[in-house]
């Protein structure tokens, strides 16, 4: 049941009580988010229903295609900065020709999924949280429950599938744009020919880098949707609550992306 009654506990008076409550609240929220994820995964069996297919496609367009512009700009400039910073240092040793490898590996392993995750958390995640929060406040979620329509199957599952597919694709796209941006800087600022840049880029990068990067992006997509829906569904206090849910979604998604990103890197590369 999404529509939960507000539970009341008397406010703690001392710092230990306050800290204890904070820990319990965090654990409770994490548990609820995991339950939401579990129920969403269980709802995947309805993924091929006509209405679900349509909704998934709509969410792919809303969440993915509409983010292409900002991802293009951010990824290109990330690649350009990487190439410039690395190239300036490498030129001191006459090794600037190797910037292709540095940019490609950085983008595939870390920067591509990471930048894509942050952009989608800020744009798509906040939008999902605001929509869910508004639906809670205007009693649309309660109406769905009373019509015996499962809000998780109806709202969360299509967004989860859409983002789990689109985030890796957008991450791959951002890697390409970053590498292209780095190549442009290599040619124009560092005197590295395009063919040498691409040759180095492909020589140093491995398939594993691509797959780990895509896996990270896949996890980031799931994190964004579950965080946004969980925060949206937990909205109370009208318009102020919707604003808080949106803010918390962005902050929590950023933190989760950073932490999960670190552990995935550690898992595959250490």
């Amino acid at each position, binding site marked *: 049941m999404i*529509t939960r*009654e*507000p539970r*009341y506990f*008397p406010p703690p008076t001392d710092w230990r009580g306050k800290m204890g409550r904070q820990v319990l609240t965090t654990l409770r929220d994490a548990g609820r988010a995991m339950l939401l994820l579990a129920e969403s995964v269980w709802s995947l069996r309805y993924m091929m229903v006509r*209405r679900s297919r349509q909704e998934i496609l709509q969410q792919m367009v809303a969440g993915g295609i509409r983010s292409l512009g900002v991802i293009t700009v951010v990824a290109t400039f990330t690649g350009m900065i990487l190439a410039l910073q690395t190239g300036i240092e490498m030129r001191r040793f006459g090794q600037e020709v190797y910037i292709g490898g540095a940019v490609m590996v950085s983008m595939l392993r870390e920067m591509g999924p990471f930048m894509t995750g942050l952009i989608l958390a800020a744009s798509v995640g906040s939008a999902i949280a605001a929509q869910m929060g508004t*639906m809670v406040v*205007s*009693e*649309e979620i*309660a*109406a769905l*429950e*009373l*019509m*015996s*329509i499962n809000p998780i199957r*109806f709202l969360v599952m299509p967004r989860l599938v859409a983002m789990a597919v689109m985030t890796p694709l957008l991450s791959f796209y951002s890697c390409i744009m970053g590498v292209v941006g780095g190549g442009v800087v290599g040619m124009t600022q560092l005197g590295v020919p395009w063919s040498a840049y691409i040759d180095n880029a492909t020589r140093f990068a491995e398939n594993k880098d691509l797959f780990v990067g895509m896996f990270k992006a896949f996890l980031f997509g799931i994190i964004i949707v579950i965080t946004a829906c969980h925060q949206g569904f937990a909205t109370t206090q009208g318009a102020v609550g919707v604003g808080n849910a949106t803010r918390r979604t962005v902050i929590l998604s950023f933190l989760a992306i950073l932490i999960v990103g670190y552990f995935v890197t550690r898992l595959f590369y250490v």
Partner: protein
Amino acid sequence: MIQFENVTKFLGGRRVLNGVTFDVRKGETLVVVGPSGTGKSVTLKHMVRLMTPDEGRVVVDGQVVSEASGEHLERIREKFGVLFQGGALLEWLNVGENVALPLREKTQMPEEEIMERVVAKLKLVGLEGDMAKFPSEISGGMRKRVGLARAIIRNPEIILYDEPTSGLDPVSSRTIDQLIDSMRNELGVTSVVVTHDLHSALSIGSRIAMLTGGRVVELADPAEFVRSGQEEVQLFLESQFITRRGEWEKDIR
């Protein structure tokens, strides 16, 4: 048909319902009135288990709602249609799609049959020509009428109305009142209406219950209600109409 048995509910450390006991009879329109914050909407939410009582129980057709879950709860909820305060329409679906939603999601009905039923229900609320409009393109009164069409699309036995006339002009309020009346007369449904609009309450109610301080202080038919000796009732009547006891008997159907 619905029994509230000594229902108590705490919210935010405050006792919102305090041993509420009443029943709703089959086919009647029970109007629940009272000042803001006295637990009218909370009472309504208990009927469909959007809230559960801390003490006491709510029984619908012999089944204890507060103990129901899963498919059992789904079957109980199927008896209900609910009109929410703002209509609770999904903004990205048009009027027709909103009304058709419960049928498309919960039944295997063919599309032609769904559309026939949607048109019939929209006709009943006077909106058959507005099927393609989106909720953002219609007025507050129309949103409530669409919400009502959606509430009755699966032919419920009981309709719950949460503040159906709040925020509406007098003409739209009258239209909603007439619709509530026609639902009872034409569809034979049992209705529970939560409102602070005493004008509406007197014109549509078979019985009126007044909630104050989390308790039912009066439960009577409209004629008896305006003559009630309860001080809370008279204060409420006077605060709403700024008039003397009994003068509003002419509004009663």
